[in-house]
């Protein structure tokens, strides 16, 4: 019976694999691709037709077996999340698209929304059908005005041609979406804070449980997914779950979007198969670092940083391996930090961001992230620090880990803590000499 065992085809884990083709980003950057006509021309809304002809349970099953995990940072299996919704009981249910992309280093969702908004709308429609939600909410960050305009127009087009509204595509399924603009608050990327914001409240996170599936928007059953997660769904429906699962590793299937920024020769958003090595990403796609690099952050500033060495460059980009090495895949926002950049200055920049975005709800974050950390950084950078301050900083970040109401405090503590682990000598140099090991340098291109 051995010949009956179906071998999984050799998985694709490199961009050099000839079988790999760019899918989600295929029409991103193509002029005019944002219109409904252009989308229909290359097969748009066929996935919705296919999905709406199946049972919602089958659609959830397809997404589950594809192995798609949340691309907003946490990496939770999308199909499993969908199956958390309670049985249909006549109450209004919501599918929410988290388009509040604000993790520093991340910009993949913006381009998807600006250049291929219908791909996202189709994903939201299919997800809504799968979980029995007749209402979709797209919560987009306020700064993304161009994407907001593009989505507004796409929604109007879709309504006009019956891809949204009553009886979508003659399937008997009613579905419409509301586009809601945020107003400059990073915390709205946290799912329950986003829901408060949508309800017209201050965007502080809610206590979990209850989880959104039980009590989300207006206390009603809600599922929330990231833009890229939802935009992947039409392709999984069209090409089948195996297409997706052939890419990546057993632990991490499918594709991800790496956004390379900082000191590299070819920054940009690159669609990659999961399991690709960081060396391939940074050197083959990103063109290598400009000058010497000393560290890289693998998935947006809330991830612990890695030193720029062979051990970490050889890591495959998959959830488990990166977690074992002490960091996270996050949003895929990869930032390369050059050797001549003072790490204390760079981490102050990160800490300042989180201090600005701390919502003030809980004490550890309000005091630790919002007040103490930026002040200690300022003192150190002003040349007034002492070696004791470095110890105190280490103590403060250790006390931020896992003690706050939501993950924002951890997000701030992680990069700072790892910078102290790998580059403590730079902090100590500043404390002892009052001047940074790497003085400020003009980084602005002519």
């Amino acid at each position, binding site marked *: 019976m051995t010949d009956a065992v179906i071998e999984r085809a050799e998985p694709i884990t490199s961009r050099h694999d000839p079988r790999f083709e760019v899918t989600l*980003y295929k029409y991103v*950057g*193509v002029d005019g691709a944002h219109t409904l006509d252009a989308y229909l021309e290359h097969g748009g809304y066929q996935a919705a037709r296919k999905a709406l002809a199946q049972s919602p349970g089958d659609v959830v099953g397809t997404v589950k077996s594809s192995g798609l995990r949340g691309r907003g940072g946490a990496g939770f299996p999308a199909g499993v999340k969908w199956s958390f919704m309670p049985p249909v009981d006549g109450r209004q249910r919501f599918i929410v698209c988290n388009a509040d*992309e*604000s*993790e*520093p*280093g*991340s*910009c993949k*969702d*913006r*381009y998807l929304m600006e*250049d291929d908004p219908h791909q996202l709308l189709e994903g939201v429609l299919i997800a809504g059908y799968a979980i029995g939600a007749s209402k979709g909410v797209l919560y987009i960050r*306020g*700064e*993304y*005005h*161009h994407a907001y*305009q*593009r989505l507004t127009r796409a929604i109007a087009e879709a309504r006009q041609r019956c891809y949204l509204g009553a009886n979508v595509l003659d399937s008997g399924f009613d579905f419409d979406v*509301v586009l*809601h*603009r945020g*107003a*400059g*608050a990073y915390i709205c990327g946290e799912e329950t804070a986003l829901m408060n*914001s949508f309800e*017209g*409240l201050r*965007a502080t996170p809610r206590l979990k449980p209850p989880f959104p599936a039980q009590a989300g*928007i*207006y206390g009603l059953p809600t599922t929330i997914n990231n833009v890229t997660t939802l935009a992947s769904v039409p392709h999984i429906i069209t090409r089948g779950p195996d297409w997706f699962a052939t890419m990546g590793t057993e632990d991490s299937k499918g594709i991800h979007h790496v*956004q*390379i*920024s*900082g000191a590299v020769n*070819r*920054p*940009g*958003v*690159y669609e990659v198969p999961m399991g690709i090595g960081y060396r391939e990403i940074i050197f083959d796609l990103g063109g290598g670092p400009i000058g010497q690099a000393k560290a890289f952050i693998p998935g947006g*500033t809330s991830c612990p940083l890695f030193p720029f060495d062979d051990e970490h460059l050889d890591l495959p980009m998959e959830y488990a391996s990166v977690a074992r090495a002490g960091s996270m895949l996050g949003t895929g*926002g990869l*930032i*390369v930090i*050059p050797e001549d*950049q003072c790490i204390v200055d*760079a981490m102050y*920049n*990160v800490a300042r*961001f989180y201090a*600005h*975005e701390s919502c003030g709800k809980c004490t550890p974050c309000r005091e630790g992230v919002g007040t103490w950390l930026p002040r200690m950084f300022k003192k150190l950078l002003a040349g007034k620090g002492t070696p004791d301050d470095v110890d105190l900083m280490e103590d403060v970040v250790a006390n931020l880990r896992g003690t706050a109401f939501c993950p924002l405090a951890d997000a701030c503590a992680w990069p700072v803590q790892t910078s102290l682990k790998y580059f403590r000598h730079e902090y100590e140099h500043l404390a002892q000499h009052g001047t940074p090991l790497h003085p*400020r340098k*003009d*980084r*602005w*291109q*002519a």
Partner: protein
Amino acid sequence: MIELETVPRFFAGKGELLEEILGRYPDYGRRSAVMPMLWEVQRAERHVSEARVAEIAEIVGLHATEVKGVMSFYSTYHGEPVGRWHLQVCSTLSCKLRGSDEMCDHLERTLGLVPGETDAEGRFSLQKVECLGSCTTAPVLQVNDSYYEEVSRERLEQLLEALKRDEPPKPWKARRGDNAQLGAAPPAEAGEGGGAA
């Protein structure tokens, strides 16, 4: 409240707009309309005054302090008018590594403003903001609602000159990596221009 009686109401005569905004949300979620209404007011008046806050509160059935509480939570609603050209320099890590600190210093010197200030004529406001989500095309400068990506020294000079003449160029949209098709020279984006105030 005195102000309310003397200043014409913002949503007076905008019944259709108001209905459209309120219609986006269910009756039990009327409060959801607060943020879109704040946006409408700010877009038209470049800030949201106390009188407008009170008006919005009245429409959704809240106290003015509740609306003010929501508004003050977010960083892109302004209680004071910003200048005609609101320059927002992204200063977070990816942009910093591409020179946003130097760009901001340059703007401070050229405009004679420190971040957070508006000039006496109300032409320019300068602000340092946190990550705008344009990390792969850093450094980025947001002018009112529009992004100008990959801002070099030379291009910033051109932009400032154009803004002084009240002739904002089309937003500079750059694409890199897999979406590089639009990426070449300073590209022009047809229509939809969010450039003008």
